[in-house]
């Protein structure tokens, strides 16, 4: 080769191209499309899911540097062993009374979900979503927070409200969109809002709550407050840009916020591979942002509690954000509009290697002598009856589509603090329309 520089890039490329005729030997590119292992008709086999021993990933110091605890983002925090004992460094050491409350709240959530799902099937409302199989991720987490910490939930954390003793009748009124609904019948069922209970208004648009939780935490930090925020989303929702916006801001401002990904394996019909789980864990998303990441057995209520407590202590001590992945399973359909037998293998939940969160907590309590199967069965019946009683009370206020709704004119309230002229005009028009429709007596409705 002489030392003459090529005169142009195209000359350079032409020379390179000649050398690179080896490219012809490459096999053609192909597009990878993720595919879940099991589909309808298959028998699921979760043998490849690694369930490490309790304490295989011991509890680090709450002030640990994120870079020093990367292992935790790939492991699985566990407390309850196969023998139903609580063990290891993550064991939060809760007293029996606290454990019993935890179990009771999870069972109440389950009873509530069953009843409301059925109400939708009976045509009493338009929609419902259960959290079956994921109860620990809303109940145990909330128990590890202070009451005045702020929660930014997705649509599947009704357990937060139940744990914070929000009146069930108010939840039902919202589900029925009736005249008792605190949200004035405006929102789809389960899209609650309860500021007094530290529960942010739920959006139908996925993951928008993520940066909002960071903003709330930044505000709290800037005011020298002691409160922190916690935010939840599903595995599928981590793909939204807002997830990544949130992690960036939280890392930059070291915000006192706890990010939680409820990895229940499914996003409607799409398995978690469509959110990137074929390549890494959701907890490991934290690593690139330089924040702490924990991967937790989401069906082990004590592990869930312990992880949340670790992250909360860390945030409260200016240690900054944590991202927690709860590895769990969506035990039933996405919502009342969904039939999972169309896209996943039957019986997956029964075969799930991490079991059922309620059963595991119950077994633990029984093993330590703080509970019995008979007590458990009685409690299930008691809670189911209790929910039914509340349901009757709620239905006094009406069910969807049967006339007992908030007054028509409330439709125009709260668009703005003060109603502008055009909404006043439209409101008057709407009232005249009701008159035309129902006759002069319509106001009685």
């Amino acid at each position, binding site marked *: 080769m002489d030392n003459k520089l090529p005169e142009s890039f195209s000359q350079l490329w032409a020379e390179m191209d000649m050398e690179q005729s080896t490219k012809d030997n490459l096999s053609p590119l*192909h*597009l990878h*499309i*993720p*595919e879940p292992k099991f*589909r309808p008709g298959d028998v699921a086999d979760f043998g490849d899911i690694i369930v490490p021993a309790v304490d295989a990933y011991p509890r680090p110091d709450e002030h640990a540097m994120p870079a020093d605890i990367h292992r935790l983002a790939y492991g699985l925090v566990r407390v309850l062993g196969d023998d139903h004992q609580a063990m290891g460094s993550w064991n939060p050491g809760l007293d029996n009374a606290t454990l019993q409350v935890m179990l009771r709240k999870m069972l109440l959530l389950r009873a509530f979900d069953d009843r409301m799902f059925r109400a939708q099937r009976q045509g009493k409302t*338009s*929609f419902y979503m259960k959290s079956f199989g994921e109860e620990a991720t809303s109940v145990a987490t909330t128990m590890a927070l202070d009451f005045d910490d702020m929660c930014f939930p997705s649509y599947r954390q009704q357990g937060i409200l139940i744990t914070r003793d929000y009146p069930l009748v108010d939840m039902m009124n919202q589900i029925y*969109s*009736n005249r008792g*609904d605190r949200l004035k*019948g*405006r*929102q*789809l*069922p389960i*899209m609650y809002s309860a500021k007094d209970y530290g529960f942010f208004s739920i*959006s*139908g*648009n*996925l993951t928008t709550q993520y940066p909002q939780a960071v903003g709330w935490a930044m505000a709290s930090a800037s005011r020298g407050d002691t409160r922190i925020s916690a935010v939840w989303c599903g595995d*599928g*929702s981590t*793909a*939204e*840009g*807002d997830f990544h916006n949130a992690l960036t801001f939280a890392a930059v401002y070291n915000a006192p916020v706890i990010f939680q990904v409820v990895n229940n394996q499914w*996003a*409607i*019909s*799409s398995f978690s591979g*469509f*959110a*990137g789980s074929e390549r890494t864990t959701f907890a490991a998303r934290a690593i690139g942002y330089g924040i702490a990441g924990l991967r937790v057995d989401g069906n082990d209520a004590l592990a869930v509690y312990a992880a949340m407590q670790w992250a909360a202590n860390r945030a409260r001590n200016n240690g900054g954000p944590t991202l927690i992945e709860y590895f769990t399973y969506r035990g039933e359909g996405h919502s009342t*509009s969904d039939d999972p037998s*169309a*896209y996943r293998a039957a019986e997956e939940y029964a075969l799930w290697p991490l079991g059922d969160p309620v059963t595991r907590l119950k077994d633990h309590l029984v093993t330590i002598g703080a509970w019995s199967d008979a007590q458990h069965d009685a409690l299930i019946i008691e809670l189911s009856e209790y929910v039914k009683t509340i349901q009757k009370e709620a239905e006094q206020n009406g069910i*969807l*589509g049967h006339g007992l*709704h*908030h007054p*028509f004119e*409330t*439709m*125009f309230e709260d*668009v703005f603090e003060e109603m502008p002229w*055009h*909404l006043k005009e*439209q409101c008057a*028009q*709407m009232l*005249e*329309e*009701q008159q*035309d*429709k129902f006759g002069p007596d319509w106001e009685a409705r």
Partner: protein
Amino acid sequence: MSAPVPKTMNMIEAINSALDIMLAKDPDVVIMGEDVGYFGGVFRATAGLQAKHGKTRVFDTPISECGIIGVGVGMAAYGLRPVPEIQFADYIYPGLDQLVSEAARLRYRSANDFICPMTVRSPFGGGIFGGQTHSQSPESLFTHVCGIKTVIPATPYDAKGLLIAAIEDNDPVVFFEPKRIYNGPFSGYYDRPVEPWSKHEGSAVPKDYYRIELGKAAVVREGAAVTVLTYGTMVHVVKAVVSEHGIDAEIIDLRTLLPLDIEAIEASVKKTGRCMVVHEATRTSGFGAELAAQVQERCFYHLEAPVERVTGFDTPYPHSLEWAYFPGPVRLARAFDKIMKD
């Protein structure tokens, strides 16, 4: 080739047929979106297409509307013809930057160097007790953007022909599907049983390829007393009200909002001397405002009454008060009374 045999289809089946035909006809067509692959879409619009055409032609995506549309722009830049689905129009907003700043302007800013032949399909509109995030009609956001075509069918026949034309179009198209009428036309009388598409002439859909040119309206009812400009679900509501009240209205289904079939509008309004515009979307700055402006600019001296707008109210879509919100038979009847009186 055998002659195309019309078959009765509902709107979902017609859309599915259009996608199926285009996948077979053009190897550049790819379909992607949340739940569209194995499952076939939450409304079943892509049912069976992955099994038939393969996983790299019809596939699920991460839940990121910004990603879906951005990836679509990149595929189009390569030379493909992506047909992404946004599960509900209410969820298109995270993708707005890629649509508005990128897809819509690519041809212009690159002086034709790059183009974006992408068709974004999305179910829109209310009347299904979907609350504020499953009911919106955001079409005027898109007609306001320079460089996007906006198409809204009102029958299975039109849905298929328009969707094929949209996919073949070399510009980005937003294709909004009125989900309330996926399974049958809607009269606006929500307490009456739903009529299936099979009873409607618009459900006679040839099984083979055909296209309906974008930018052409359809006169769905001829009349002399008043012109009604509408689209989507409201075409059927207007038809029901007009026949119920014996109004001699000329109903124009715009089908394409942009580019608008201005000739059809002008001819009709000049004939009838009255014009009502009807849409489900909120009123202020809605597409009806554009229509009213066009009509008064072009037909002012033919008008015997002010242009009347019948729309949804300027509030988020409510859940329990859905039918007080929806521009149904009562609101329409009052508007007809008013416009015919003047």
